[in-house]
């Protein structure tokens, strides 16, 4: 019984948090862009006169989207038209199963891994799911019986193919250094320290890899600077024929992808759930002090640490999205193939040689 109960509860926990964070992103998007541009942002939705800084706007959006007409264009393929947003959001949601958000936790003699699926190929699994997500986008363009939507889908697919290769390559350096594809194992290895006090996070092994990963990862999210597939403001994208909650699912899938990239960045480059100098039984500071903590508090701190890192990267990605203008399409493909890809290859090559001569994990 508990063999089934625990993963179900974990999955429910992750799903609940991730979907709420995605809904929260609509609020964050409005408010952060407003604050960055010296505005105030949406703050009018209220319940009983209570406005709460516009936090009810995501709720209002959701109600609006559910109540809108769900329209399939005549000549469109109804089955594929309905399937596309479901695929889009399904694959991105199950990718979160492999993200470790904490170490193990023992409750009543049961050992719980704070990761929904403890896969030894977690990284490959996540990339596979992110690649599958493109099917939703391409099908959306294909089934809408609209040439603009079709072109949007084509732009999306060529962009995804260009950047997924770079995305994989940028992380191969880390895979060589850690010698594993298991994300939980990678996080464990980032719990070591350089010179006894600098946390051995991936960013110190692969600073260039981090920049390239961000460049390629943001392309995966299909948001500005890379929002050529959608281009809400002028070029119509693959979801031009979608309305109601089907559009909302595409909209959500974008935010979920942003969160996934934030989770990956935190996990791979910033130590995941590791808190600097926190060991199994409390803090041991390099300058001598120590704070004893119970195992439960250590787990809580680790989950909080992971959340804070993810929040920070969500904020950073939102800043990037509201700062940079969109790439022209040829610039986008040039940037992917002629800049990110060769540098990622060179980075991988140099890393491989260093690991060969210095030994892994040093």
């Amino acid at each position: 019984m508990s063999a089934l109960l625990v993963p179900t509860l974990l999955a429910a926990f992750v799903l609940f948090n991730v979907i709420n964070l995605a809904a929260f992103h609509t609020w964050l998007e409005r408010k952060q862009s407003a604050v960055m541009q010296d505005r105030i942002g949406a703050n009018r939705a209220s319940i009983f006169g209570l406005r709460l800084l516009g936090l009810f706007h995501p709720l209002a959006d959701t109600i609006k989207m559910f109540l809108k007409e769900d329209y399939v264009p005549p000549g469109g393929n109804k089955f594929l038209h309905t399937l596309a947003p479901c695929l889009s959001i399904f694959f991105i949601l199950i990718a979160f199963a492999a993200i470790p958000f904490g170490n193990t936790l023992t409750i009543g003699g049961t050992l719980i891994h704070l990761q929904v699926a403890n896969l030894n190929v977690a990284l490959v699994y996540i990339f596979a799911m992110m690649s599958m997500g493109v099917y939703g986008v391409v099908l959306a363009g294909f089934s809408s019986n609209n040439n603009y939507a079709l072109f949007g889908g084509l732009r999306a697919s060529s962009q995804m193919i260009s950047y997924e290769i770079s995305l994989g390559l940028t992380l191969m350096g880390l895979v060589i250094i850690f010698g594993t594809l298991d994300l939980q194992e990678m996080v464990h290895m980032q719990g070591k320290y350089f010179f006894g006090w600098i946390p051995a996070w991936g960013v110190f092994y692969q600073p260039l890899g981090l920049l390239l990963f961000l460049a390629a990862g943001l392309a995966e999210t299909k948001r500005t600077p890379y929002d050529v597939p959608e281009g809400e403001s002028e070029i119509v994208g693959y979801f031009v024929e979608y309305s109601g909650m089907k559009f909302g699912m595409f909209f959500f899938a974008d935010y979920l992808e942003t969160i996934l990239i934030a989770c990956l960045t935190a996990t791979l480059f910033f130590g995941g759930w590791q808190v600097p100098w926190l060991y199994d039984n409390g803090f041991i500071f390099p300058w001598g002090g120590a704070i004893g903590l119970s195992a439960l508090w250590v787990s809580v701190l680790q989950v909080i640490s992971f959340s804070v890192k993810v929040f920070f990267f969500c904020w950073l990605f939102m800043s990037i999205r509201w700062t940079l203008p969109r790439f022209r399409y040829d610039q986008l493909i040039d940037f992917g193939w002629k800049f990110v890809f060769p540098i990622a290859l060179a980075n991988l090559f140099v890393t491989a040689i260093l690991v060969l001569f210095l030994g892994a994990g040093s």
Partner: protein
Amino acid sequence: MIKVKIMEQPKMTWWEKIYFPELVRGIWITSWHFIRNITLHTLHLFGLCKDMPAAVTFQYPEVQRPLAKRTRTRHRLTQRDDGSPRCVACMMCETVCPARCIYIVAEEHPDPNIEKRPAKFDIDLGKCVYCGFCVEACPEDAIRMDTKIIDTAAYSRQGMMLDMQELLNPRTGIKK
């Protein structure tokens, strides 16, 4: 021979071409705005630094943006000392109005010194282009456009018709 002026394409320096430093600089600018504004918003919550605005937004229905003195806003009819309109129904404004949105019906004034007065004076805001010609044309200073009311919203076209009663007593400012 057409004179041709060849424009120099702005050349990017090497520093700008490698893209990442400029990218970081851009993000620094927006992040600085974000940090400054969010700090000010937080301080405002505690009632501090109220004189340093964190946003340039005017919360419109509650707070009206300051208007320039010469801004032409909704019309009003000026009154005599006894409260009757100064208008003498000379039809100057109705004649000059390019949008033909003023409708005046004249009648005899009981005072023999004054020739006429308006029985009806309607302005159709749905047609008005706010050119201010009526104000210029008026010989009696009977119509002005200085009420500072800038909204013209109504639920029907009929709702945009302003009658004399409304023009003589315009609501001052926005309804709370």
